[in-house]
């Protein structure tokens, strides 16, 4: 039976149906998804580091429990996404190797340091907030396993953003020093968060094809604008300012105007020279290497239980 599978593939996408792992798909579709899902998975697990940094120093038991739950969620998100990527025919080992050797990237936002407790608030509010903006449309991505993973992730993300907002709200309403700490964190995280949406549409290399394939539903600039429009009123509610003097409502556009983005900084961080690039990767590799004995022990234990006789050299059979 001869089927024009390529036409069938595009028909499935155009009908807003889903591509499943064992369907025929163009190699470039597969490669694009592997790259995107892997980068997303890497971002989730590298993203545990800036926040993990504050678990032992959270200001109360309640804040510590909340932060641990959030960091655990990010580990879970990484696992959902690695599983989704694996349905495309790459192995987990390959993906981890690609991350550790710098051949696949993670989101540049995690190369910024979390200097004070208020940074944990700013990360939850702005970084998780921007991530949610990016991720909600991915729940309708044309690739089934990715879309299903994103549904789970988006459900869990909403608490991440709220707990960040709440941290900032409490600090902002606290002493003058606490308010200043909250403002300082927002001043440092605002522009990097805006850059999370990636290059402007005219500079974005993969966007058009991803749109045709139903992997992407909105352009970088559309999502960035949506995030800014949602966030400005929230900053007012926090009694904090956003560090952009050009930020103002434009009645004609029905959107907030904003100032120019420092793309030189963006590319510098993407290309490896952000404040924490080396530290993040080194810490990730070290954790993997230091955990090797745990994985080996589990493997050995499983093998021993599957075949209790094996590995007992000089046992009764040999002696008899």
């Amino acid at each position, binding site marked *: 039976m001869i089927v024009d599978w390529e036409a069938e593939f595009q028909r499935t996408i155009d009908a807003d149906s889903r591509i499943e792992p064992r369907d025929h798909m163009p190699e470039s579709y597969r490669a694009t998804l592997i790259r995107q899902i892997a980068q997303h998975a890497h971002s989730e697990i590298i993203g545990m580091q800036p926040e993990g940094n504050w678990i032992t120093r959270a200001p109360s038991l309640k804040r510590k429990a909340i932060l641990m739950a959030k960091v655990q969620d990010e580990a879970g998100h990484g696992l959902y996404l690695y599983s989704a990527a694996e349905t495309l025919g790459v192995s987990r080992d390959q993906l981890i190797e690609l991350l550790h050797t710098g051949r696949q990237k993670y989101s540049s936002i995690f190369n910024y340091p979390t200097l004070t407790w208020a940074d944990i608030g700013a990360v939850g509010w702005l970084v998780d907030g921007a991530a949610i903006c990016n991720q909600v449309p991915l729940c309708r991505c044309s690739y089934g*396993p990715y879309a299903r993973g994103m549904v789970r992730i988006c459900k869990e993300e909403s608490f991440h953003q709220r707990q960040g907002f709440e941290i900032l709200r409490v600090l902002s309403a606290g002493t003058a020093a606490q308010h200043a700490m909250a403002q300082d964190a927002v001043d440092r995280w605002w522009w990097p968060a805006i850059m999370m949406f990636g290059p402007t549409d005219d500079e974005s290399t993969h966007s058009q094809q991803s749109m045709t394939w139903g992997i992407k539903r909105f352009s970088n600039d559309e999502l960035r604008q949506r995030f800014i429009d949602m966030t400005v009123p929230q900053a007012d509610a926090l009694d904090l300012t956003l560090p952009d003097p050009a930020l103002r409502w434009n009645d004609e556009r029905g959107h907030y105007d904003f100032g120019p983005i420092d793309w030189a900084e963006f590319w510098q961080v993407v290309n490896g020279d952000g404040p924490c690039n080396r530290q993040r990767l080194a810490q990730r590799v070290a954790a993997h290497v230091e955990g090797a004995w745990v994985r080996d022990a589990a493997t050995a234990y499983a093998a021993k239980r599957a075949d209790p006789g094996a590995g007992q050299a000089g046992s009764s059979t040999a002696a008899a």
Partner: protein
Amino acid sequence: MAGAGSPNGSVPGSVPGSEATEPASRGWPLWEVFIRARRGLAHNHVGSLHAADAELAMGMARDVYTRRSEGVSIWVVPTASITASSPDEKDAFFASAADKPYRHPTFYDVPAGVKHL
């Protein structure tokens, strides 16, 4: 782990004409996770994970897939033990059901006024 018929399809066999086999993972085997959300519901497939054995797979499934009380019962199944239908989910395997509309009640005319039929 073979998993040529895995519901998660972790097989690069989708390349037309290719007979590619599973890329060997040097790590732990793959398990498919099914969760019963509440009593009275069936177990549903929720995802997969790697684990050295069934017991560890169970513990990890709990940690990864039920952090918010999403389930009251978990099944973990080695991906390699699942046999699935065809590699192509649009296969003619299911076509024979398509020309039997008489299996549906809507196929039959019911005269006006006839009740409880």
